[in-house]
């Protein structure tokens, strides 16, 4: 399984989607997941494709083509606004 997390405004857009998805070789990068989501959630995929959106795997920022393994936690992070 892969565990997906969506923060900030992305969380609202992703409220309806399944956050625990089966691990599959065709979905083995954050980019592949993003593209897959476009079928049913085109607006979410559009937002995920904004250049300021970062992706992390197991809490480390990675590139969008970072290889995923079964059990990974993949988080989609819009620009931060703390402080």
């Amino acid at each position, binding site marked *: 399984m892969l565990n997906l*997390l969506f*923060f*900030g*405004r992305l*969380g*609202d857009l992703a409220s309806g989607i399944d956050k625990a998805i089966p691990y599959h070789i065709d979905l083995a990068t954050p980019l592949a997941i993003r593209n897959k989501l476009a079928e049913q959630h085109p607006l979410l995929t559009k937002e995920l494709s904004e250049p*300021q959106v970062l992706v*992390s795997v197991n*809490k480390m920022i990675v590139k969008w083509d970072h290889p995923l393994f079964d059990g990974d936690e993949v*988080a989609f*992070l*819009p*620009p*931060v*606004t*703390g*402080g």
Partner: protein
Amino acid sequence: MSISISVQAKDFDLGAEYDRLRSIGDGLGAIVTFTGLVRDFESRPEEPQYSRKLTTLTLQHYPEMTERLLSDIVEQALTRWSLLGVTVIHRIGSLSPNDQIVLVGVASTHRHDAFQAAEFVMDYLKTRATFWKKAHVDGQEQWLDAKHSDANAAARWDDIKHD
């Protein structure tokens, strides 16, 4: 070296955090604290006309990752300046105007180190730590956009030599 980092829903007591930094003792000569408070309006320095009345702010974060990023920021400050202690507390959850959001406290021997490090930690925290704010403004809720002014403030440090 005294380092304390906390992400918490509960409020903090500036006086108590200051007393803890002050107890460091040896060589201590300066303590700078920065406290960020929820403003009663949401404004944008780059859009001086923009001002909306705020009722509540909800702060979300990415547990574990946030603490690690804050820790990285403090470590960077320690390599840049001569410091004796650093405290970072960031609140999450639902906050009202005038509530305390964030505290950065820095103890050092000489004042310039403490001033610089405190401002550095705030600038980096604003742009690199995984917090997101949702504002309840004029009866509507909206996730806040990152500010260009914050990005610029953080970028400043890239050009500054360690001093």
